[in-house]
């Protein structure tokens, strides 16, 4: 389980963020004492840090620069200051991403998972049972047999694969599609999922994707 450290001075947001991250099956840690922030951050050994710029008593941008001297852990700046200048500055200090409040929770999760994936240098090829999935090419391979997926189908399958065993909401799938410039509507998403299922069934993987009523989908 990936550990995400939340550095945020607003207690309500801090709690909700940890809940959001835990629901998305991450391990959430919060920093409550900002006095010795740098050492505490380094000691926490997180896989990713969510860092607010406006923390009383310390400057998030400077803190970021200090952290960068010691470690390459991915840092996402979260802030309510939303000027381009702040973003440029943060990125130049080595932030991996910059998200402004109020953020869309699904998009936040999407960004986090994208950055974690980038940090892991995962290849674009992954495996599911005896399937070999090449997401860049949109091809599923079983031995010599090949199955071609459309871009949308591949995006959906990829999200489900990344969160294997966890229920993925329609909203998450939709956000992932939109993030890839596929602005589909509700009907199109349903159609894409049923096509993907049909293709997988034809390939010998019936019931690979389960529907959980009112919750979403699950790759079993």
């Amino acid at each position, binding site marked *: 389980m990936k550990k995400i450290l939340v550095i945020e001075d*607003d207690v*309500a*947001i801090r709690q*909700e*963020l940890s*809940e*959001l991250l835990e*629901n998305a099956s991450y391990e959430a840690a919060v920093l409550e004492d900002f006095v010795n922030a740098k050492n505490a951050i380094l000691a926490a050994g997180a896989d990713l840090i969510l860092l607010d710029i*406006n923390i009383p008593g310390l400057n998030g941008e400077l803190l970021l620069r200090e952290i960068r001297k010691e470690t390459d852990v991915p840092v996402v700046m979260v802030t*309510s*200051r*939303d*000027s*381009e*200048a702040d*973003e*440029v500055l943060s990125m130049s200090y080595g932030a991996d991403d910059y998200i*402004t*409040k*109020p*953020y*869309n*929770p*699904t*998009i936040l999760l999407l960004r986090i998972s994208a950055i974690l994936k980038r940090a892991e240098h995962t290849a674009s090829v992954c495996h599911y049972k005896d399937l070999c999935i090449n997401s860049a090419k949109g091809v599923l391979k079983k031995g010599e047999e090949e199955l071609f997926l459309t871009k949308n189908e591949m995006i959906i399958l990829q999200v489900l694969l990344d969160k294997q065993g966890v229920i993925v*909401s329609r909203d998450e799938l*939709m*956000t992932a599609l*939109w*993030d890839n*410039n596929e*602005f589909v*509507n*509700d009907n199109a998403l349903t159609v894409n999922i049923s096509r993907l299922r049909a293709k997988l069934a034809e390939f010998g993987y019936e019931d690979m994707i389960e529907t959980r009523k*009112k919750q979403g989908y699950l790759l079993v």
Partner: protein
Amino acid sequence: MKFGKYVQDELFAIIAGVLFWLVLTVFFAFFYISFSFILFMTVLFLFFAISVLLWGFFRRRKFYNQLFQNLDRLDQKYLLLETLDKPDFYDGELLCQAFYEMEKSMCENVRSYQHSMNDFKEYIEMWVHEVKIPISSLLLMCHNNQDTIAPKYARQIRRLSQYTDQVLYYVRSEHAANDYVIKKEQLGKLVKKAVIQNKEDLLENKIDIHVEEIGQTVMTDGKWFEFILNQILNNSIKYKSDKRQPVIHIFAEDLPSMTILHVKDNGIGICEGDLPNVFKKSFTGENGRHHAKSTGMGLYIVKKLCKSLGHGIEIKSVAEEYTEVIFAFVKNDYYFIS
């Protein structure tokens, strides 16, 4: 400055001069002084009197003509004093002194307003940033408790967030001095960000959105332009037509000198009479009265921001058919000199 008027003004001195001449002439006549001497005295007197009159006239005319000419040509009339040569007559000096005092007091006044405006602006910016924190918490709470909190709550919170953003950008558009950074941005990415921001509203309103491949880069401030697009998309959502499947079509074209971005919807459109006024402050028009509630500020702010960023913006529309917003980004090599 007119000579006639000046003579009228000096009438008392002239009458005094004439009386003095009369008295002198009568006095001379009593003493049997020769007529030719009186004539000589008269000519001499006239010569001096007219000289004094003309001299007084011309040196004033020089000053006042300059004053009125400069007043005409200046667009900031309060700077008049700085453009004048120092007058060489007493009443002119007094006038300049009075001008100087007036200018000084006005500058002080303007300055104090500037200060209070700046304070207000800073406060509003700070307030917006503060208010975004509870808004963020609320959105997260809605998301974390989706099974118990209906989506309608999140919708209202999103509205709240949009209105606070509008305030922030209104303040920024009124005092656009140092808040923006113009750099190379991928237009497609900005469009995507703005569209995703409105994902929930677009889906709830069952609006189909077609975004064509946009590969152009433009010079702009990313955050500002995202806000601009956001406002335009909000309008398209707000003023969709119930008579057909709502569609928003976004595409870009490349011209030799500029990049054009089109955002076209098939909503209720804007009637011809309202079209020239849509960018005016507080203008609501037919649509604002009959359809969705409108503040008349959205497009006004958009126009101002576009002006600051140097983008052209134009709206084409046919009532009951479509509204098309067109942005023009000038391609300028000047920006690329590093």
